[in-house]
């Protein structure tokens, strides 16, 4: 090596070492984060808003259910239980008057005491601003305060889903101070009655919720979202981590104590790893292929039946999720173990037959018009499923125009009945059947046949649980004969939690009251 090259080599090496030295300067103890009474929860991204009333976004409800509470909630068996109310409502014999007693001593995060006036204002706001409230609004005659601790909802006609709508944590009938309500606009400030209150929100960085010392808990043993609630952890910090691989690495490294919505293939990375436990949430959700019942080629019911017959949902599920541990080819809209499960009325599910599909196509008078199916790579499982669906439909004789869009475009385009014939989406588990989007006649797809309208009205009028189940079965039969949508099957959610996180209850919308952090 000549003199110059030795010197140059030394200079280059020096520069490299300086760089490395600079990088290693902070490489001492791991992460320097001793969580103590703080847990960091990695979520799939930044929520579009923190107002729980105006949106049905799951991400929003996961966070805001710690801040806001509703009159009722659900226990582990998805049965209705009181939350801000002190008991379940007294319903008049004609099913039109709901008298709701309120818990006394409930305090808002601003220190003020909750009154019936606040509840009335909150419910009025919900009826105007929430997608779920708007579903109930046409049935509601008035909401009044009978006394300081009692609210009365008068209906124009019996409407059985009301209590479930009031219990949902998204599009939520959140009880807030009357002073923060401004007509149908988003809440002016985020003040609730929950076990945690909002401390700080730095978009794309973190949302800090801290224990609310003035919290008044419902009584009774904890069960699902119901029963006693205690904020044992001082601070719950939600951090948006859009990259799923990073959420997996973060929980493995101990940076996050909980990571939500992980890819199925990450399950293997948790096996044999000390300190982290995978959490599989069942039931969680179901992918749907929504068809346009109102306009275009799919308005033809026979053609929709042909689609149902042409598809093999098991293949679609496997393509979407890869691991059989995370899927169940289940046709009943409600999963086994839930109150509305019924396999018999879902029999056409999975009766896959290419020749039968081709016959149905002929009977439908199909002339090879392209079927415009919208999908999005933003939800990879939906995209993969739509590829399999495309292949299966083409094998049966359909001509498919698969349109791959970003999610925002799909959401906009689906509102235009002339722009599409089918689209892929998914639905998170909801405890009340009438809350399933497809049941709403204004939801894109516009399933609103006279038979469905009548069956749904009868179901909504029925107050007796056993009779409601029988009426739901009739709706499910219609779902499979009129085929407004195709339920592809059940899928489960993978999350992961640190071993230090104890008393955590797996639910579709993870919550952290009653959970604790071991030292």
């Amino acid at each position, binding site marked *: 090596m000549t003199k110059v090259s030795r010197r140059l080599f030394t200079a280059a090496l020096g520069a490299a070492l300086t760089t490395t030295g600079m990088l290693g300067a902070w490489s001492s103890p791991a992460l320097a984060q001793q969580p103590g009474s703080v847990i960091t929860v990695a979520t799939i991204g930044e929520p579009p808003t923190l107002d729980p009333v105006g949106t049905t976004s799951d991400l929003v409800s996961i966070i805001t259910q710690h801040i806001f509470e509703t009159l009722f909630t659900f226990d582990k068996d998805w049965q209705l239980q009181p939350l801000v109310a002190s008991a379940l409502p007294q319903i008049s014999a004609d099913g039109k008057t709901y008298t709701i007693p309120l818990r006394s001593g409930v305090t808002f995060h601003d220190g003020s005491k909750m009154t019936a006036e606040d509840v009335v204002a909150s419910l009025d706001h919900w009826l105007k601003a929430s997608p779920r409230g708007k579903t109930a609004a046409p049935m509601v005659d008035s909401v009044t305060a009978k006394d300081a601790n009692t609210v009365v909802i008068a209906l124009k006609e019996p409407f059985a889903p009301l209590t479930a709508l009031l219990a949902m944590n998204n599009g939520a009938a959140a009880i807030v101070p009357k002073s923060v309500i401004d007509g149908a606009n988003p809440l002016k400030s985020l003040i609730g009655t929950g076990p945690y209150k909002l401390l700080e929100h730095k978009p*794309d960085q973190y949302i800090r919720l801290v224990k609310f010392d003035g919290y008044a808990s419902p009584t009774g043993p904890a069960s699902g979202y119901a029963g006693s609630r205690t904020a044992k952890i001082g601070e719950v910090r939600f951090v948006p981590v859009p990259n799923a691989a990073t959420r997996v690495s973060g929980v493995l490294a101990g940076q996050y104590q909980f990571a939500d919505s992980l890819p199925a293939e990450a399950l293997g990375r948790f096996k044999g790893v000390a300190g982290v436990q995978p959490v599989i949430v069942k039931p969680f959700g179901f992918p749907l292929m929504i068809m346009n019942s109102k306009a275009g080629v799919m308005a033809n019911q026979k053609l929709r039946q042909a689609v149902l017959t042409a598809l093999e949902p098991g293949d679609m599920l496997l393509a979407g999720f890869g691991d059989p541990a995370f899927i169940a080819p289940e046709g009943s809209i409600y999963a086994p173990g839930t109150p509305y499960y019924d396999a018999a009325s879902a029999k056409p599910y999975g009766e896959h037959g290419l020749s039968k599909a081709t016959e149905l196509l002929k009977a439908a008078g199909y002339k090879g018009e392209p079927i415009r199916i919208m999908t999005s790579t933003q939800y990879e499982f939906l995209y993969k499923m739509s590829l399999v669906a495309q292949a299966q439909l083409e094998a049966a004789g359909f001509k498919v125009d698969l349109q791959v869009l970003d999610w925002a475009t799909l959401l906009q385009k689906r509102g235009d009945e002339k722009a599409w014939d089918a689209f892929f989406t998914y639905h998170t588990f909801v405890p009340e059947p009438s809350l399933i989007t497809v049941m709403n006649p204004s939801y894109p797809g516009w399933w609103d046949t006279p038979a469905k309208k009548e069956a749904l009205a009868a179901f909504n009028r029925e107050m007796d649980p056993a009779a409601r189940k029988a009426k739901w079965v009739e709706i499910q039969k219609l779902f499979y004969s009129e085929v407004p949508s195709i339920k592809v099957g059940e899928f489960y959610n993978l999350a992961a939690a640190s071993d230090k996180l104890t008393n955590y209850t797996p639910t579709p919308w993870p919550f952290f009251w009653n959970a604790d952090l071991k030292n």
Partner: protein
Amino acid sequence: MFVYIVRRLAGMMVVMLIVAAVVFVIARVVPGDPAAVMLGSSATPEDIAALRSRLGLDQPLLAQFILYLGQIARFDLGDSIFLNRPVVQALAERSELTGLLTLMSVGIAVLIGVPVGILSAAKRGRWIDQTALGIAMLAASVPSFWIGLTLIKYLAVDLTWFPVAGYGAPDASFGERLRHLVLPAIALGIPNSALILRFTRTSMLDVLGDDYVRTARAKGLPPMVVVLKHALRNAMIPILTVIGLTAAVMIAGAIVTETVFGLPGVGNLIVSAVLRRDYPVIQGALLVVSAIYVLINLSVDLLYAVVDPRVRY
């Protein structure tokens, strides 16, 4: 030089106006609706129409554009639809992270790329040169997200030397925040160091073949002085250009790395805004990024005069 700077800044105003118009049109032409995103997938068309009206998105495009130009004239970039704060504030909150990440990654790229590039040129055709070029080719070919995920796997998860992601806890010290940027800076710096290395090598090879370098050697000057004092200075103009461009691109172009490391930087802000159709943020952020891009290029042009006395403005 003053006249030159004033002329360039005036040109910049024109560029900004064109950028403002183009971004406005593109953001609106692309389908998608912030109201639909905000309301969630269960929202009905009626809910979406009501929110659009409240946000002023149902106004004619021309009316929206005139309003937007009026805001820009008052140096007001508007308010984010989703973030519940002015766009300027959203950008300011992300400027520290983006500035530091750009500095650190450009620093790494320069500290590796320039010395190794010089060495490679000085030892042209020898094993050092071949090895450096091979490694540079590899570094340039490997995507930064893969480097990022590999660094996370070994240095953050296995060895726990660095945090996996994020920009530190709310009470994190400046040092801790810097520590969160080390892995992303390496992931961004390595591919860019390869680019700088190749430019440095090529530029140095051009200069090392010049007559004046041969003369310097013939005079008996030490090889180190010939390479570092005589040759390097004249080779600096293309190197400065590529360093400037690298820095400019990183301000908004570190999107993939920011996503992998969960960093709330400017790139992440722009991508989130595009996915949510947060028009004011898309417009404001791209306008500011374009201005920075133009300013960096102007600074690089001015630096030419510093390294090369023949350049006069």
